[in-house]
């Protein structure tokens, strides 16, 4: 029987063992995310336009309401109310009863609650009204009026606006959060699976038939597959809901953004998954496991903060740049820097090379710690002690 067959059997067992928690948590995710999105879509009724109330005092232009509605467009709606005096308009502006007031043909009043957009739009409407009236007084033809109305100001674009930039940043932000949560959650699943086998002493029986490295790798692969499936499920639910209800814009995401996020996710998961397995092997029971996972989760959290800062910052910084080269943090910071357009091609290459090398090295390190850890059924071990103990095991 080949080592590969034994490894595959261990993977299948772990998949079966974690099937129930996987199905339960998946159901919770699907139901929870669907409920949350339904709630958000109900609360955020995006089709409803914003309503502004405009007070009219005295003899205003008869065509003003129609012109203002044209300027408002579909996103805003105007309600016009007649007010008897300027004092009444002042009072209504002060208490927020109206957003803006127009007095006569050429005066507008703004108050403490008047938005800049409403003030600018009202001003433009009044200017249009007055211009049209004066053009008529001057006896200008319709063509001359039209020429005056459109002075032909040209806007030259110096740098092309990247249309997908915002979408990519949104994807990177969501991916960063999901990546952090997934590595943390599934990493700890791996760790607890290791602790369980060690605490039940079943590992002693298994090591008679399975190489310790294969036993550890089986956990990382099987729980990783479940984790990726769950992340995919989450993405599918969001996408399906968004498309079905037309409530959520599915961003036009550049393929390369998704590609880089996936590359770093897989490398980061492999690295942290093995480290959590090694951490689990140090504990003798699940109560102790929490304290061995703590430092790993803290390191992961630092990288997560770095990634969030990268995505919210306006410029690159030396600290983030350094973070994106340190393999423990690169999976969470480099994709963000790539999407922001801050990472040079050689930086991506160097970071990736360091990441691959470190992942390989840390998997080997974690493997040895795991071997030493699971073969010692004593109380909690230190990393160094487990490393030393691995020399005592021939079966590896």
């Amino acid at each position: 029987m080949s080592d590969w067959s034994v490894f595959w059997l261990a993977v299948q067992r772990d998949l079966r063992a974690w099937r129930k928690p996987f199905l339960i948590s998946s159901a919770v995710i699907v139901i929870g995310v669907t409920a949350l999105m339904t709630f958000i879509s109900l609360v955020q009724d995006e089709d409803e336009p914003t309503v502004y109330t405009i007070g009219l005092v005295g003899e205003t232009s008869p065509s003003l309401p129609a012109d203002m509605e044209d300027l408002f467009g579909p996103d805003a709606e105007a309600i016009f109310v007649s007010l008897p005096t300027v004092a009444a308009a002042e009072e209504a502006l002060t208490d927020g009863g109206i957003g803006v007031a127009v007095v006569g043909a050429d005066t507008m009043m703004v108050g403490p609650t008047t938005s800049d957009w409403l003030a600018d739009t009202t001003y433009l409407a009044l200017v249009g009204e007055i211009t049209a009236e004066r053009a008529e007084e001057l006896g200008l033809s319709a063509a001359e009026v039209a020429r005056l109305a459109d002075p032909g100001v040209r806007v030259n674009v110096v740098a092309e606006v990247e249309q997908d930039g915002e979408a990519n940043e949104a994807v990177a932000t969501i991916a960063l959060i999901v990546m952090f949560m997934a590595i943390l959650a599934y990493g700890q699943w791996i760790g607890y699976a290791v602790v369980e086998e060690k605490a039940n002493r079943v590992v002693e029986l298994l090591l008679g038939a399975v190489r310790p490295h294969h036993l550890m790798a089986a956990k990382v692969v099987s729980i990783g597959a479940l984790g990726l499936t769950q992340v995919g499920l989450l993405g599918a639910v969001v996408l399906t809901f968004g498309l079905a209800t037309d409530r959520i814009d599915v961003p036009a995401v550049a393929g390369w953004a998704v590609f880089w996020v996936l590359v770093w996710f897989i490398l980061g998961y492999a690295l942290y998954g093995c480290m959590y397995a090694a951490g689990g092997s140090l504990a003798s029971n699940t109560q102790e496991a929490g304290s061995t996972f703590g430092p790993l989760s803290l390191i992961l959290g630092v990288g997560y903060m770095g990634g969030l800062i990268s995505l919210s910052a306006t410029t690159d910084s030396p600290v983030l740049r350094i973070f994106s080269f340190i393999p423990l943090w690169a999976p969470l910071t480099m994709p963000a820097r790539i999407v922001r357009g801050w990472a040079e091609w050689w930086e991506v290459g160097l970071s990736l090379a360091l990441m691959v090398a470190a992942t390989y090295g840390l998997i080997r390190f974690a493997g040895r710690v795991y071997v030493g850890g699971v073969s010692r059924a004593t109380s909690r071990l230190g990393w160094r002690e487990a490393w030393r103990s691995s020399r005592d095991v021939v079966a590896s």
Partner: protein
Amino acid sequence: MLELRGLHKHYRDVTALDGLDLSIAPGQMLGFLGPNGAGKTTAMRSVFGLVRPDAGTVVWSGDPITAAVRRRFGYMPEERGLYPKMRVHDQLVYFGRLHGLTAAEAGRVVEQWLGELGLEDRTNAKVDELSHGNQQRVQLVAAMLHSPELLVLDEPFVGLDPIASATMAQLLQDQAERGVAVLFSSHQLDVVEDLCEDVVIVDQGRVVLAGRVSELRAASARRYLDLVLADATVVPTLEGIPSAQVVDIRGDRVRLAVDERADLVALAAAVATVADFTQFTYQPPALSEVFREAVAP
């Protein structure tokens, strides 16, 4: 044949193995005895690669033990190990497959074993729903369902009631008769004496006594005369019998230590003159006494 040759193992300033030698042939049942901390578990773990000796070799049929060879062995560790939330049948099939059985073979063998051990109605039970004795049975099945060539069991009789012990003993005997080399450790020396022809006694990491149980007992210079008296009140008069010394009196049962060179017929006649007895047994010391002598500080 399994051979452990000159094994040494130190953990900092603790000597676990100090030149231990041991061998066991196919079909042999070997009792591995020793006080706590003598090195039995360390020696057994070395067979499965769980301990790397500082010096010495562990070989099977003259060759080092590889991962593939190890899968042909069966092991019951001192600390029992099973997945508590996994069903008995699924768990045993998994262990069988890890040791090279196909899914169909494993399923068939598991059903056969569970039937033989009276566990057929617990096939789909989770392990933590079983009694201690039944968990022990399942653990034993896990060790031998793949028909191993070598069976190593660390304290297999611990925690078993007399009936379960007898069942376990019979199973081990069957395995040995089938040609399996069976090595097991135990502190229940009466069980070992009943079950094994051969024992190895270790202390402080080295073998202090090894051989056939009957020969080890016979090698002692001591002999015992065990009497069951018809009348317990006559005990004091036994004190005067030449070359015999009363060492234990419990009700109507009396044990006398006698010299191995004593004339048995003369001795029986001497006893008969002073006491009526219903039973007269002359025997060498039990294995437990041989053990105590061997490991005495």
